[in-house]
């Protein structure tokens, strides 16, 4: 195995695109090294992207934030403005693993590992984040919900890297929340995860919302019907009941030791309601 740590994206893309064998990006390595150790993947080339400054920064851009794909969970949490602007996304990223894993794990890796249960991905989708990809044919932007297609299958082409995520500008009284269900309180994989981002008008009516579910289908889902259920309402009982029903209707989960199909569907509705109420409470103060 060859290890390279270039300091520009273009050099990284060139290395990845030019490798005849199996090439892998190395961000925090908290998925990749585990997979290498258990022989799930045996790359011929590993390209460490942590020396590329563009991938390691959080910058304010167009009223929002551009977050480098290789910024760690611990760094997101320590950022001066992000936890206040996007508390749901930061808490989703911070649910990944332990303190030790937080010191290394990135949102780019979480997305590109291609697990339907990745915690930060519903947070990014609910946030309306756009990923900037860089590949041999240049740069392009894709909404995060369009990147993961199926378990371990991404819309990325050979040599393409996720460089950053743009979290859009949004009006006052906007906020977000992410909740997951796991059988323990820490260190486990989501049975269901749900991110909700919303905006309220001065009277408290929801004017915009995005709802995303993880671990209930082959890929993290953007559930437009769930958002529609609360837009134009003050999240009263009827709206929340509709939100729950829409979240449940979107689920196509698997049955496994972590949760049955019925349980996952039920919990998806519960988490959607609770996450929406937390986001609403935060938005009132934002």
């Amino acid at each position, binding site marked *: 195995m060859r*290890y390279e*740590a270039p300091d520009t994206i273009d050099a990284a893309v060139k290395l990845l695109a030019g490798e005849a064998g199996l090439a892998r990006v190395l961000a925090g390595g908290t998925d990749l*090294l585990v997979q290498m*150790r258990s022989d799930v993947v045996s790359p011929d080339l590993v390209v460490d992207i942590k020396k590329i400054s563009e991938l390691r920064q959080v910058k304010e851009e167009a009223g929002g934030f551009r977050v480098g794909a290789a910024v760690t969970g611990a760094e997101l949490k320590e950022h001066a403005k992000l936890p206040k602007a996007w508390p749901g996304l930061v808490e989703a990223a911070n649910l990944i693993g332990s*303190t030790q894993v937080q*010191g290394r794990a990135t949102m780019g890796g979480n997305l590109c590992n291609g697990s339907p249960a990745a915690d930060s991905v519903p947070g990014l989708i609910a946030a309306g984040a756009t990923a900037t990809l860089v590949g041999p044919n240049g740069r392009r932007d894709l909404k995060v919900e369009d990147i993961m297609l199926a378990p371990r299958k991404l819309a990325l082409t050979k040599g393409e890297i996720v460089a950053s995520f743009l979290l859009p500008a949004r009006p006052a009284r906007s906020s977000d929340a992410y909740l997951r269900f796991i059988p323990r309180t820490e260190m486990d994989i989501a049975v269901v995860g749900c991110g909700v981002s919303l905006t309220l008008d001065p009277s408290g009516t929801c004017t915009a919302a995005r709802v995303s579910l993880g671990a209930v289908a082959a890929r993290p889902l953007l559930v437009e019907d769930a958002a529609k259920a609360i837009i134009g309402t003050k999240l009263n009982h009827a709206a929340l009941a509709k939100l729950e029903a829409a979240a449940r209707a979107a689920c196509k989960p698997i049955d496994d030791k972590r949760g049955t199909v019925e349980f996952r569907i039920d919990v998806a509705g519960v988490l959607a309601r609770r996450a929406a109420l937390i986001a609403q409470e935060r938005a009132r103060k934002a």
Partner: protein
Amino acid sequence: MAKHHVSATVNGDAVEFLCESEQTLLDCLRDELDLTGAKEGCSSGDCGACSVMVDGRLVCSCLVLGVEASGKSIETIEGLSDGEKLHPLQQKFLEHAALQCGICTPGFLVASKALLEKHPNPTETEIRYWLAGNLCRCTGYDKIIRAVIDAAAEMRGA
């Protein structure tokens, strides 16, 4: 493939070692530098026995490649005591009998030190969350938590 020549700082000392691309930082510390304090419990990021600091950040050294240490400052359990003088955390682990077989202990100590540097006065809940990535099969955790609380108090001069 030629081995990588890595220069780094370990516990304040400049070190150099050769390693293969696949070797983890844990392998390099233990096999190339003879620093066997960090333990290999799982090699999958679950147990925390391999915890070290890399440029001030707590990580599992089993999930870091040895070559990534190039130019970095690493702190391991071997740097915790001041010569023969134990660090307050080590002293309190002994007093509270916070170890039995001891495999998990270096990881708990390194992780606890990182916590107390950031939060000198953590609540019990904060300690438990911070140490959730350190597993212990022997003690049942409670003695470890008491030892950390006690060491924190001593280090604050309380």
